[in-house]
């Protein structure tokens, strides 16, 4: 709570400064008085109506969500950069977005808690231990050389590409009632025992990484960097996938949250890579589903706020104000209770009950029933979160969602796989 008042006092001060600064120009003065609406572009998963409501209440900033599909987010940023004021994009899109010149580096000095960002995002470590950096690890693309720069800085600078909103680690989700043995390795994804009942992600750059995890686990291939394969590695991976497809391994491919939940809940698929909240969603329908920790580790992803190059004036101030509010705890707690991890852990903790924090972050058994933010029952008392604590999960990340240098070749080979 103390944090929040601090933020609000700061923004008041900043607002006052803005007023003083612009008093000489009558027109902008009028603008500054109006309520600001921020057009917030992202996938629907990231757009919680509760967050918009709370932000409007706390800040007087209206959030207008523009919901699009995963692949549409970068396309909009590149082709219609003036159609939004704030984008919530995945870090792995950045190698495409930043060189396009449509993004604006965020001024680190205007982000209150820039020093408190989770270490896994800020420098790729958890508890001082380095996690897997295969793929587009967020810390590698977090900083820019300058505000208008179109290339990344290797060292921390004053200019930030994306401020994290949520991140998590994906692993295989399974239906324990339909699978009668222990699953311990990604290799099970390609296990003929599950022929016709397995699924992988249909976003080529991520699907191929799922396959790579499985192939490496099976001992077929070793990769230099699973998130940035060589042509030979891509060819070998796709060849293995084609073989599995011809043998009828896959029931279907999923490309979004809803599909992965429905494939699992309907029993069409019993094993597939899944997001933690998707597993939760299956379980709330009364269908048993496990987010299975595996010996090879997790495939992680992270998503964050970015600003379009065209933003300026009152809108830009409002965007910073909203981002600072977002990091101040309420939103972080809200997202944590859905199974995501927030950028700043400390502030989220303040907005959660101790038993909630213990369940979601410390791997402890729930002392009370665990409820979702909308009041639905997620887990009964006594349950332990799959995968355990934050450190156990994020510490075991093996690779990050990525766009490869050989992207073009990869897409061509993926189309070959689909056509096979």
């Amino acid at each position: 709570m103390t944090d929040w008042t601090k933020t609000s006092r700061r923004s008041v001060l900043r607002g006052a400064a803005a007023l003083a600064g612009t008093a000489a120009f009558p027109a902008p003065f009028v603008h500054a008085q109006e309520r600001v609406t921020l057009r917030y572009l992202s996938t629907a998963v990231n757009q919680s109506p509760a967050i918009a409501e709370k932000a409007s209440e706390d800040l007087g900033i209206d959030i207008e969500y523009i919901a699009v599909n995963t692949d549409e987010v970068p396309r909009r940023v590149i082709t219609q950069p003036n159609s939004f004021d704030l984008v919530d994009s995945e870090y792995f899109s950045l190698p495409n977005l930043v060189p396009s010149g449509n993004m604006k580096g965020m001024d680190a000095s205007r982000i209150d808690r820039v020093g408190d960002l989770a270490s896994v995002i800020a420098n790729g470590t958890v508890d001082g231990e380095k996690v897997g950096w295969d793929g587009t690890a967020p810390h590698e693309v977090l900083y820019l050389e300058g505000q208008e720069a179109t290339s990344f800085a290797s060292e921390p600078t004053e200019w930030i590409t994306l401020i994290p909103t949520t991140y998590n680690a994906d692993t295989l989700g399974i239906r324990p009632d339909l699978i009668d043995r222990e699953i311990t390795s990604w290799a099970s994804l390609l296990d003929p025992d599950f022929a016709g009942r397995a699924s992988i992600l249909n976003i080529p750059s991520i699907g191929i990484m799922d396959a790579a995890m499985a192939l490496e686990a099976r001992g077929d291939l070793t990769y230099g960097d699973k998130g940035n394969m060589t042509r030979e590695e891509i060819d070998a991976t796709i060849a293995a996938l084609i073989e599995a497809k011809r043998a009828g391994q896959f029931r279907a491919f999923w490309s979004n949250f809803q599909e992965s939940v429905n494939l699992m809940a309907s029993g069409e698929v019993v094993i597939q890579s899944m997001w933690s909240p998707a597993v939760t969603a299956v379980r709330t329908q009364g269908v048993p589903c496990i987010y299975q920790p595996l010996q090879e580790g997790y495939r992680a992803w992270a998503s964050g706020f970015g600003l379009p190059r065209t933003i300026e004036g009152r809108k830009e101030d409002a965007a910073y104000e909203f981002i600072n509010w977002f990091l101040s705890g309420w939103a972080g707690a809200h997202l944590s209770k859905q199974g995501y991890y927030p950028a700043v852990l400390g502030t989220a903790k303040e907005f959660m009950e101790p038993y909630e924090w213990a369940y979601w972050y410390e791997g402890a058994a729930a002392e009370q029933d665990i409820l979702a933010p909308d009041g639905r029952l997620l887990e009964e008392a006594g349950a332990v979160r799959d995968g355990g604590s934050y450190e156990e999960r994020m510490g075991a990340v093996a690779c990050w969602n990525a766009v490869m240098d050989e992207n073009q070749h990869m897409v061509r080979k993926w189309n070959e796989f689909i056509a096979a």
Partner: protein
Amino acid sequence: MSARRPRSFYVLAFLFVLFLLFLYGPMISILVLSFQGPEGGLVFPMVGVSTHWFERLWAGGGQVEIGAALRRSFALALVVMVLTVTISVLAGLAFRRRFRGATVLLYVAIASLIVPSIVVSLGIALEFRLLDDAIKAVGAVAGIEWVQTGFVSALGPFTSGLGAHLTWTLPFGLLIMFAVFNRFDPAYEEAARDLGATPWQTFRHVTLPMIAPFLIGVAVFGFTLSWDELARSSQVMGAQNTLPMQLAAKTTTVTDPEIYALGTATTGGSVLLLLVAFTLISLMQPRRKRG
């Protein structure tokens, strides 16, 4: 009417009913699943039976948040409908006579149906991006303050979006007009003209009443095609989503049957509207005849 029907009638009627069943198949699962229990999901099994999801939908604030997009889509579909009817009738009249470029226009209209929608959408988006740049350049040069401070993009549901939808609805409208005018007996118009009617009078009092019933068809086509359009809309609506786009984006995250409740409610609503319209028309008809 005819008292005896041939046996083939019953066979074909049966097949028609089967066809209807086939068409309504997905509707049936939507209908059934919209009464899922509060714990249930988007797929079978049913977890109890309830009107929970209708209540959620009615109360608002659930996962399916569509109010603005729904109104926008409805307004857009209405505009598309009116323009489709107007432009199609005009073009239909044009095609009754020879004019240069008729064949080209026809082929363009047909091509507009054929070209994959996603390509049309992308093309329009590229075009408007160039237009935006041009407008900004002009605004900067001419010093128009409004353009310099307030202009965001020419992309929008009622500019590029409207155009994209028209490229989809107009070919249908035109083809229907061909069908209409091919059966149209020009003798009536000649008679009117011989009686001294001006072309406008002829059109207004002879041609229009005769083709009016078919225009309803064009209107329904125009509305329905626009209302449900997804692929052509995808790149051209700017910051604002139409209903199908909003639903497509939302369904990627929505995992509860509220979305089915919405489907059931909209379909139920349109059927109700249709019944009311039909009743009204059949009530009015005898009167009109008498009058």
